[in-house]
């Protein structure tokens, strides 16, 4: 029961309000680009905050956290891909695009978990924040490789004439790698962390109203809008069908369990820190990965991966997953 009452935090309630506003067909509209502005702000604030903490942290632990973030980032999409292929409900292209979303991470879910921990007065390490930055890109690369494999198999079955004046595959792939690593949110997050780590403490102190005091309010606004976006996606629930919808709930649970095990057993984090690692394992990207997949895997159906990551997994994690992973981590630590 105690974990249920933790749902009654303003950020989560605003998410629910966004969903309700959409369901009752309210005429509420957020100005264009607000979500973009807020997500830049949120990443910048959390980056400065975490970078400042990390400046004082232990380098070996940080490197170990980065190493495990890479392992999670590269292996989660493969687990997702194999699971999807077994269901036989989607084409290999769709499976590749969907699994890239599940290997990558959602900063929105991560921040909600921070709000949850703050609200429960649970402390947490700042290392999961670097893991958030690191885990954004590897899954995109794995997704692209899986899609390239699937494309090759398809091409072997029914060969097509080669493109004449078109961009060839090789240059395209390198530009996609460039995109994966220079993605806007990665630049904002890592850049802010470096600034936070090397700035003078007195300078960071002056920024406190910006990075601490208004942070939760901005998160409420962001989740308010994301609630509306998620609800808009739930409409398309019918299109994805029950098997994929179940995947949208089961996959984050698998990721959450793997993340919790890594956080507790391998990285030896506190309950708060390990919960954050579990959330990283469980969350699915809906900001960085969709554009990359739209560009690089046009054969995949966007309504599958958007409905799954934004319409099913994101609300599941915000409302059910985070308390669940917290409970699981407590259980692991307790035994």
């Amino acid at each position: 029961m105690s974990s249920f009452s933790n749902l009654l935090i303003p950020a989560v309630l605003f998410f629910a309000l966004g969903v309700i506003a959409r369901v009752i067909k309210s005429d509420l509209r957020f100005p264009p680009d607000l979500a973009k502005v807020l997500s830049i702000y949120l990443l910048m604030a959390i980056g400065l905050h975490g970078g400042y903490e990390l400046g004082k942290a232990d380098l070996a632990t940080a490197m170990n956290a980065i190493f495990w973030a890479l392992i999670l980032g590269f292996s989660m999409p493969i687990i997702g891909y194999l699971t999807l292929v077994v269901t036989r409900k989607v084409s290999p292209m769709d499976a590749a695009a969907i699994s890239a979303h599940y290997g990558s991470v959602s900063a929105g879910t991560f921040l909600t978990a921070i709000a949850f921990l703050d609200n429960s007065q649970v402390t947490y390490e700042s290392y999961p924040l670097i893991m958030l930055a690191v885990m954004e890109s590897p899954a995109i690369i794995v997704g692209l490789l899986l899609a390239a494999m699937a494309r090759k198999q398809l091409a072997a079955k029914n060969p097509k004439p080669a493109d004449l004046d078109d961009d060839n595959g090789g240059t395209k792939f390198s530009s996609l790698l460039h995109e994966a690593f220079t993605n806007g949110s990665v630049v904002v997050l890592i850049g802010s962390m470096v600034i936070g780590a090397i700035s003078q403490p007195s300078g960071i102190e002056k920024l406190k109203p910006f990075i601490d005091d208004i942070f939760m309010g901005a998160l409420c606004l962001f989740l308010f809008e994301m609630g509306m976006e998620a609800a808009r996606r739930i409409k398309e629930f019918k299109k994805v069908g029950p098997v994929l919808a179940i995947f949208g709930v089961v996959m984050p649970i698998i990721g959450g369990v793997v993340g919790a095990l890594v956080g507790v057993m391998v990285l030896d984090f506190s309950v708060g820190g390990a919960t954050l690692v579990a959330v990283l394992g469980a969350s699915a990207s809906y900001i960085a990965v969709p554009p990359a997949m739209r560009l690089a895997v046009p054969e995949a159906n966007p309504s599958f991966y958007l409905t799954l990551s934004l319409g099913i997994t994101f609300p599941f994690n915000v409302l059910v997953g985070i308390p669940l992973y917290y409970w699981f981590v407590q259980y692991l630590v307790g035994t």
Partner: protein
Amino acid sequence: MANLYPHKLVNIISLDVLQDKLAEMFRRHGVSGYTIIRVRGEGGSGEVAGTLDFEANIMVKVIVPEEKLQRLLDGLQRQIDKGYHLTIFVSDVEVISPEKFSTPFK
């Protein structure tokens, strides 16, 4: 008195993420320039409200002399064959400075 010269206006409705790809293609085809407008609407891909990055749509407008049209359309067709969702329509327009539309940009 200024004269009018017939040209073709190619309108492309596409995803925001394809912007660089299209620009690169125009450059290869020696197009004189292009104009982009952010748009939103609803169609085969559902509602595109433009609130989030990944579902913002753009309308790209390109004016070309008639002899360049077919090759450009073929190039666009190849993108559609690859799976990209592009809505393309062409209309007749008249311009007053044809030399402007025959000089490739950059």
